[in-house]
């Protein structure tokens, strides 16, 4: 089985910041807006290097989304930055009407998604944002897994014409994808070849899936791990090709099982190739305060949960 090396823990939000810094140098149409979270979003470099293209909006996210939509008119490519909760639920109608329905080229960049925001608790830990965003016609939804991939995705979405939701997180996690990678929107990445179970993971759960695959191998189970960084449009083919070989699937995400990656996968499977599926996701619940590791364990979002789900789903074949 192919193995991956963690080159050192890094936060995905810093990958976003690095990508934005790069874009500042290479694309003069890129502008950045922030709702009073410049430090948290790692937008400080862009702000320092291009103050004329950085817009501090203050604590007014609805206004930020509207301004971003307006800035596209005349050719700018706005990247908005705030926490995932304030990037989606708080401004859903602004995104729906002024961005998605108006088909504006806005990049909604959302940090601190999911439980791993940690101690701030449930008010800030959105577990519904993927569902909210994937339901909007025309919206591309991306959830990257590590620093390098987040940086690559940030750079790539500037070249893509249309609204994008880019989701990433707060904690330092394994950085294991290549430093200089091409990021293909909508293209799943097969990380390991396997024959017994497919594990489809997104965001922080991708590394956990790789850890799970190692444990499963020791138990004689061959797992095919696919990194689904783009939830919409979903790489149907990568998923269907894999389950045609393995016959069962586990989906893993830092999100409610309602509305998340797992449901999108289930839809493809029932339409094309009904397959036993287990969900590693939160179970229709809010989060709470705690360290990221404690929360991921308590809510069953780690490699152990993926191992268990894999063993269970294999029995259902």
């Amino acid at each position: 089985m192919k193995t991956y090396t963690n080159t050192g823990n890094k936060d995905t939000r810093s990958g976003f910041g690095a990508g934005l810094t790069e874009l500042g140098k290479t694309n003069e149409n890129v502008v950045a807006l922030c709702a009073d979270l410049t430090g948290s979003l790692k937008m400080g470099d862009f702000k320092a290097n291009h103050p004329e293209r950085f817009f501090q909006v203050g604590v007014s996210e609805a206004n930020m989304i509207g301004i971003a939509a307006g800035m596209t008119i005349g050719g700018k490519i706005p990247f908005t930055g705030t926490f995932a909760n304030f990037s989606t639920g708080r401004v859903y109608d602004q995104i729906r009407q002024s961005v998605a329905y108006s088909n504006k080229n806005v990049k909604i960049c959302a940090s601190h998604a999911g439980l791993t925001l940690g101690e701030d608790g449930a008010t800030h830990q959105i577990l519904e944002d993927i569902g909210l965003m994937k339901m909007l016609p025309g919206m591309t939804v991306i959830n990257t897994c590590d620093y390098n991939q987040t940086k690559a995705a940030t750079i790539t979405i500037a070249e893509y014409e249309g609204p994008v939701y880019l989701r990433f997180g707060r904690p330092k996690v394994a950085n294991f994808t290549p430093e200089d990678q091409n990021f293909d929107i909508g293209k799943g990445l097969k990380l390991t070849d396997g024959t017994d179970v497919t594990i489809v993971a997104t965001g922080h759960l991708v590394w956990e899936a790789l850890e799970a695959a190692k444990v499963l191998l020791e138990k004689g189970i061959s797992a095919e791990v696919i990194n689904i960084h783009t939830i919409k449009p979903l790489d149907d083919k990568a998923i269907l090709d894999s389950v045609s070989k393995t016959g069962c699937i586990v989906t893993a995400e830092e999100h409610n099982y309602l509305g998340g990656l797992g449901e999108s996968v289930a839809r493809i499977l029932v339409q094309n190739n009904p397959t036993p599926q287990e969900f590693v996701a939160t179970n229709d619940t809010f989060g709470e305060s705690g360290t990221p590791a404690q929360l991921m364990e308590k809510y069953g979002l780690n490699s152990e949960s993926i191992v268990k789900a894999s063993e269970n789903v294999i029995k259902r074949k």
Partner: protein
Amino acid sequence: MPDTQQLEDLVTQSRRDILRMVHKVNSGHPGGSLGCAEFFVTLYNEIMERNDEFSMDGNNEDIFFLSNGHISPIFYSVLARTGYFPLEELNSFRLINSRLQGHPTTHEGLPGIRISSGSLGQGLSVAIGAAQTKKLNNDNHLVYSLHGDGELQEGQNWEAIMYAAGNGIDNIIATVDLNGQQIDGATEDVLPMGNIKEKFEAFGWIVLEIEKGNDIEAVLKGMAEAKKRTGQGKPVCVLLKTVMGHGVDFMMHTHTWHGIAPNDEQLAIGLAQNPETLGDY
């Protein structure tokens, strides 16, 4: 000076368009549309510097955003009559497969529309964003927007009002249609908003008032003055005092016709009060 009779004729004809459009589909918003006829006709024919061809980016021309999208009938009428799309297309207002949706949208590619509006309170933020892009592009043209007075009850406006002043967005002229009416009744009864002029001023805007918002010459003069006040480091607000339903006597001075279409008899009365000038669509 522009020929105000020509503008009057356009206003009268647009009133006919509004009445006929909403009557045909028995839906739509005639009241606010009628009240803003002078504003739209003046804006598009005399005030804005517009390019002949529509482009979404609107570079090197003045651009306009309608925030209170429900008054789409007057917007569509004036867009059609200033050449953005064929006049006959007004026949398709609110019909299935039409580009003239109930509320304006970019989704069907109707020339002249740059943002979808209808869910209230979002247009000022969008206009501010477009104004900032004009500054970044060294484009000295202006951004105009129109908002309902009832619409100011949406909180996002006040975020935008604060932001525009705080950032010296001085290439925008935001007009508020002060007709004092909203769906449920008079704004004073639904949710009193206090002194809107003082509110805008307290936030740091230049505020001009057009007392006679249904008088072409007053609108021309007021908007020309507003243009002069741009470029002074502050955003400009125009409080346009209009009468909802203006030009059709039984629709005036009431919220009743905010979102109700006239029946056959009422249409005939309304059209009789606004005789054909430039030809019906």
